[in-house]
């Protein structure tokens, strides 16, 4: 949808003078002991004020910064007037999962980084993500929005493999276009990384469930406990579906191959977060799945997942959580807001440091991490300065839990069981913009193609794939 271009309002100065509305949040000390959501969301009046900060740019660059091209000025202008239902309609015409995106998108690098309000002296960008979240929460709390219109059935069937952000976004668009969509999920609950990876305190699971229920209302069927590649192969699915979208994600945790890495108490971030988030290990009164609750926890890595793991460890009762990262603060891939939240809660950032081996007791449990100091050398191919180990700088930290959070490779199930599918380094090869793979009728997108990325990039890929699947279903040309 083309972004709204409205006449420039006369009260520009007043708009510029309105301060960015701060996000209310739980007290840092209190929240470090519970799993409830950290940020509390804007109230309606604050959301209206925040939307009022939009200055009606002639060419709204914020839209270009959004991987799914939401008509941002359009919904902001409606919020400003208090027309929340209309605003939500505009938002949902391009993004059916606003409660999720409003919470986990890196807006500061996307829409908000291009906001003209934020470019003016002494001013900060419109908090687009916060307004988006407000609208989604308003709807969930009982506000009335128009139901999503679904086109008449086309008679075509599409299988979506994986129910993470890419799969859900693709399913939503295809259902809207009238295609029958069945989503396959290997876990017992749909949502992918949204339910197993992102902690409750950042994205409450009830919200994910509600967004997924909305998809089901549009006619999307979700089949859990079904591992495509094993329960049925892609070839099997081809017999029953007109097209297939593979969105199985990056779910093969990397380890560093260090001595002692298989000691008890050393987890991949995936395992640690899955035990806590999906399997409910934070609530042992109601769940059997255990997780080792350490006094001294060391988290290795500097991305969003590392922040999630560190903050989770704190909430599980750790006395000291140390985040060990081999570069400096500036190179950390995590969102600034996540880093700030972690710092406020008391996570110890041990930077320019890397683990070199793990030490265990006679029962095979980890008791300490040996680390080496690092220095930043010349910039590498990615432009970031390369860390170099400092000889003779070995030192140890006590640790009864270690969470290795250094990234993930592509999930191997579909590539290994689909002989005709072209892959490169385990990732599925898909054409830019269309998601078409080497197999006719089979599309792929999200982390299985991109490598571990963000929720919104995966959703963008899902939406692009939906558009090209729709075209393929109509024309039959490959």
């Amino acid at each position, binding site marked *: 949808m083309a972004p709204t271009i409205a006449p420039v309002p006369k009260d520009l100065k007043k708009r510029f003078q309105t301060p960015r509305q701060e996000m209310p949040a739980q007290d840092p000390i209190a929240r470090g002991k519970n799993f409830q959501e950290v940020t509390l969301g804007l109230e309606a009046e604050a959301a209206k004020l925040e939307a009022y900060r939009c200055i009606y740019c002639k060419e709204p660059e914020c839209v270009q910064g959004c991987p799914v091209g939401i008509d941002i000025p359009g919904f902001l202008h409606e919020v400003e007037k208090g027309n929340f239902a209309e605003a939500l309609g505009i938002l949902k015409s391009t993004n059916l999962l606003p409660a999720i995106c409003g919470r986990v998108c890196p807006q500061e690098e996307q829409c908000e980084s291009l906001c003209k309000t934020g470019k003016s002296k002494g001013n900060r960008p419109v908090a687009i993500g916060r307004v988006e979240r407000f609208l989604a929460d308003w709807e969930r709390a009982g506000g009335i929005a128009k139901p999503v219109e679904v086109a008449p059935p086309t008679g075509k069937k599409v299988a979506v493999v994986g129910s993470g952000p890419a799969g859900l976004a693709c399913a939503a668009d295809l259902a809207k276009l009238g295609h029958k969509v069945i989503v396959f999920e290997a876990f017992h609950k749909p949502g992918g990384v949204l339910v197993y990876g992102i902690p409750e305190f950042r994205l409450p699971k009830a919200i994910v469930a509600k967004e997924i229920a909305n998809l089901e209302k549009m006619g999307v069927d979700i089949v859990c406990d079904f591992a495509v590649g094993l329960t049925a192969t892609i070839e099997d699915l081809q017999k029953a579906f007109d097209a297939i979208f593979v969105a199985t994600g990056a779910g093969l945790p990397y380890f560093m191959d260090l001595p002692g890495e298989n000691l008890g108490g050393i987890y991949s971030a995936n395992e640690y977060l899955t035990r806590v988030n999906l399997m409910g290990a934070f609530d042992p009164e109601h769940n*059997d*799945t255990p997780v080792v609750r350490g006094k001294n926890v060391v988290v290795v890595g500097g991305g969003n997942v590392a922040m999630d793991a560190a903050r989770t460890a704190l909430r599980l009762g750790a006395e000291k959580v140390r985040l060990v990262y081999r570069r400096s603060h500036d190179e950390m891939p995590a969102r600034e807001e996540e880093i700030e939240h972690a710092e406020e809660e008391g996570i110890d950032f041990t930077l320019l440091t890397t683990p070199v081996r793990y030490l265990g007791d006679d029962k095979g449990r980890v008791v300490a991490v040996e680390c080496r100091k690092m220095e930043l050398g010349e910039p590498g191919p990615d432009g970031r300065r390369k860390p170099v180990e400092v000889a003779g700088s070995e030192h140890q930290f006590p640790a009864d839990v270690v969470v290795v959070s250094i990234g993930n490779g592509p999930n191997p199930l579909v590539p290994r069981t689909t002989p005709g599918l072209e892959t490169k380094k385990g990732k599925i090869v898909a054409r830019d913009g269309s998601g078409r793979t080497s197999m006719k009728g089979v599309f792929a997108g999200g982390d299985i193609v991109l490598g571990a990325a963000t929720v919104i990039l995966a959703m963008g890929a899902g939406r692009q794939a939906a558009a090209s699947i729709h075209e393929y279903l109509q024309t039959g040309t490959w």
Partner: protein
Amino acid sequence: MELLKQSFELLEKRELAPKVNLYKVRAPQVARARKAGQFVIIRVCEGSERIPLTIADADPVAGTVTLVVQEVGSTTARMAQVKVGERFADLLGPLGAPTHVAKIGTVVCVGGGIGIAPVHPIAQALKAAGNRVIGVLAARNTGLLFFRDEMRKACDEVRVWTDDGSEGKKGLATDAIKEIQAEVGQIAEVVAIGPVPMMKFVSKLTKELGIKTQVSLNPVMVDGTGMCGGCRVSVDGKSKFVCVDGPEFDGHQVDFDELSRRQAIYKEDERRAMERLVKEVR
């Protein structure tokens, strides 16, 4: 292809030995897709763990899979409480790489205790591929043995060994292998499944004897699709994920001691989960 929501109804339940139950579960897609050596992950009910269980048998026509489970902790105890006609919350599979089946000659399939169940479909597949299959059932005593008839059907010959001599010959699985080797000469391969110490000692012996040996590992696992890395095990000095790289590995290269230690990580938590179960049952 069946695409409807699945329900995993318990159709039949039988006690094979004290605390060892056979469960026949409706799971048509798994029954159709499974091959020898593969396993499933089951979740008994809301709030219970995901545990891996090897498929002991399957009937693709009836759409059922058979699991043989020993009650060792809270989840397997919970499983034992499910009645015929009730449903398991979840059953995912078939998982893992299937057994590599080829015609290689005389193969000895050793099932130690509860390991008799997972070795059964492998024996079937190896026999179907034209091998001479000698089955060995080994347990502490006669009360812990089961699947005698099933294994006789699956193998060319079955030998029974017990630690106390209460059935068959007195001795361990390793004694059985020594005896067979003395009789038949060349054993092409040993497949050994059972408790970790049994697999460890069988592998140690067959390494000395120069017999290729496959073992099937059953470590702590969460997702079963390669996502969590919880099931990692050292094989030939390298970390492998049992759920996608296994469950079968060359017994001569597995670090069994590390595996034992990793299996014991949650002993304390297990006690807590058991207390919760007892409270619920009361």
